[in-house]
């Protein structure tokens, strides 16, 4: 076997090049796309990829966050700071407003709001007429995602039908849609949690402080670490301990950042990106298994929520 072209991209360079290609296809094929940006690590990677894809021009899409109202202040502040640094437009739409409108009805006031994001997202898609939402989902996250397309088609109810997805061959993407329909584009589909952390390390990306080891009051509830007494941007304090629960001060970090009521931290002393990379290499629990309190109800709960329009 002869090797003519000795130079080959490293795996991170390859993943980066693929993601940039996908972002440019969205920009080239869609008339009104939007980039979903939460302040979390995956969407921070996508912002860096968008810089590499479109600078020195502006991004050909605004950023949008669907805020459950139950987010850590550190993350919200970081979100605003990052959007300002980039000079890009940030749209925020909140589940709180959907509750006021009556389109979201909570079963109880402290019900996790992650799944209600779908409603607010669909309302925002309609309000702005977006034909494509770019998101940070990865195929390694969960079984229901292993078959997800890079350009995933949703009908006018935002529904994902596994039997009605377009075949995706070579790197030829079909992001066409009729009015009212929607494409969800996932540029980092082929990345793993490890790839994300290696990219953050290489690109020296800033992150919200709660990704790093810090001390926090928690209680143990059904074998899960539940952070308690968390102040919201609104001043409200949520996740108060239940009667009989002992508050423990523990050194923890978050592997994933989402709605406070359904995201658990892990015990960790990793206070730098490099230490997190090492910890990720030796962990024995999957990202969702360790940290998502809402995926554990059933084997197929993610698949179910995706069908309902969840990201």
């Amino acid at each position, binding site marked *: *076997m*002869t*090797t*003519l*072209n*000795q*130079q*080959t*991209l*490293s*795996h*991170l*360079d*390859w993943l*980066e*090049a*693929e993601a*940039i*290609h996908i972002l*440019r*296809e969205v*920009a*080239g094929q869609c008339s009104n796309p939007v980039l979903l940006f939460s302040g979390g690590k995956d969407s921070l990677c996508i912002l860096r990829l968008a810089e*590499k*894809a*479109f*600078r*020195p*021009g*502006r991004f050909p899409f605004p950023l949008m966050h669907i805020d459950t109202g139950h987010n850590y202040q550190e993350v919200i502040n970081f979100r605003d700071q990052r959007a300002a640094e980039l000079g890009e437009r940030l749209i925020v739409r909140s589940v709180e407003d959907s509750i006021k409108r009556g389109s979201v009805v909570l079963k109880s006031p402290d019900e996790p709001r992650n799944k209600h994001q779908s409603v607010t997202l669909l309302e925002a898609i309609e309000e702005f007429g977006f034909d494509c939402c770019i998101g940070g989902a990865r*195929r390694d996250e969960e*079984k*229901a995602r*292993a*078959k997800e397309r890079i350009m995933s088609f949703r009908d006018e109810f935002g529904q994902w039908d*596994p*039997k009605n997805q*377009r*075949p*995706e*061959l*070579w*790197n*030829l993407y*079909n992001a*066409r*849609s*009729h009015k009212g329909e929607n494409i969800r584009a996932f540029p980092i589909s*082929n990345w*793993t949690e*490890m*790839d994300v952390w290696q990219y953050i390390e290489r690109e020296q990306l800033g992150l919200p402080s709660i990704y790093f080891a810090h001390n926090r009051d928690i209680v143990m509830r059904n074998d899960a670490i539940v952070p308690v007494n968390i102040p919201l941007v609104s001043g409200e304090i949520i996740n108060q301990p239940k009667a009989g629960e002992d508050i423990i001060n523990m050194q923890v970090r978050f592997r994933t950042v989402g709605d406070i009521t359904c995201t658990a931290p892990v015990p960790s002393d990793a206070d730098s990106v490099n230490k997190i990379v090492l910890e990720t290499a030796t962990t*024995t*629990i*999957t990202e969702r*298994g*360790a940290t998502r309190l809402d995926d554990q109800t059933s*084997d197929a709960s993610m*698949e*179910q929520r995706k069908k309902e329009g969840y990201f």
Partner: protein
Amino acid sequence: MSRQENSLAHNDSLLRFMTCGSVDDGKSTLIGRLLYDTKTILTDTLTQIERTSQKRGMESVDLSLLTDGLQAEREQGITIDVAYRYFSTGTRKYIIADAPGHEQYTRNMVTAASTAHLAIILIDARKGVLTQTRRHSYLAQLVGIPHIVVAINKMDLVDYSQAEFERIRTSYLEFAEQIGLQRNGRDISFVPMSALNGDMIVDRGDVMPWYEGPTILELLESVPPAHSERNESFRFPVQFVCRPHASDDHELHDFRGFMGRVESGEIATGDAVTVLPSGITSRVKAIQLGNTVLEHAITEQSITLLLEDEIDISRGDMIVKSDSVPEPVKQLNAMVCWLSETPLSSARTYIIRHTARESKAKVGNIAYKIDVNTTTQLPAEGGGLNMNDIASITFKLAQPLMIDPYELNRATGSFIIIDETTNNTVGAGMVQA
């Protein structure tokens, strides 16, 4: 080039491969093995499949459950789609495309094969080369996968017999000869294994001392990266044009960046280029990746090209080196795999998407169909094409496309066919020379 340099070149690269076979061949177990033995499976996932294995009354952990499908599929007892899995060995990152193997899923195999650089074709040692083995091998060849690994599985059920292994190897090579599988430098390797016990996948085991060749993982680790084995011409489809003229920064006032991915070949500052389909020539002024200025760019890199001259270029145009310019064509012949439940209709107009370019297309002549089981040509009767059919078709194009034969270039030789009414992707095409 010495061997050592060769292995260094693979360090930290990425390899995409596919697995062909049915559940009965132990395909899911093989994938489960690769994930498990490379320590990709974490405790909570393992606990989950341990519980399921027990529930189903199995004695040991069924690794095939790791690739268990969607609820919708389980309910129907079928696999309907290509799934992608990931693992890393520290020297390489791997993306596995896992496609169901039955006859009615030709389209899924073609989809999985389109991005694969290597195919593992599973054979049950008790059954030898079957019709489905022929089908999988033919499709791997059709879609241009350069490396074939024939994994002869379930050796434990034939007493790890070297004679059985050799017999299957010989009969496979006879068939490979018939269909010209080794043309174009395609290589074929044979590995005896037991996915169930993990022999010759990651670990060698000690039951087949007569086999001195590489294990499956050793083969995966040593395959040269895609695009590294032959010289390809530079092809750069323009995806997006960056003109930040409204910017406050006056230096950017005249900035014109042509953004895209190097689909093949290499480019360096100062190279003479031709823009297609216009045919206008210029030179590369600069190559950028984000804020970084590059002296040259290589295959699969996403970059921004700046040219010496002010030329009007838009999305869908292609920049090539002036010493290798493809002819823009308004008619092409291609092998097409039909992907849609709605048959192809010769009366209709379709959209062909080729690189970043689209053209309306009309079906001309259907020369022949292929029987994927016998790999023989059949007459195309009636002019229709059903899902999973493969046929040689002539298209007439409204816009010129800058194509290369698929055999020479998988990026500029491939296209998808889109139904304008539904926007669905209904066909996959490979340009014939």
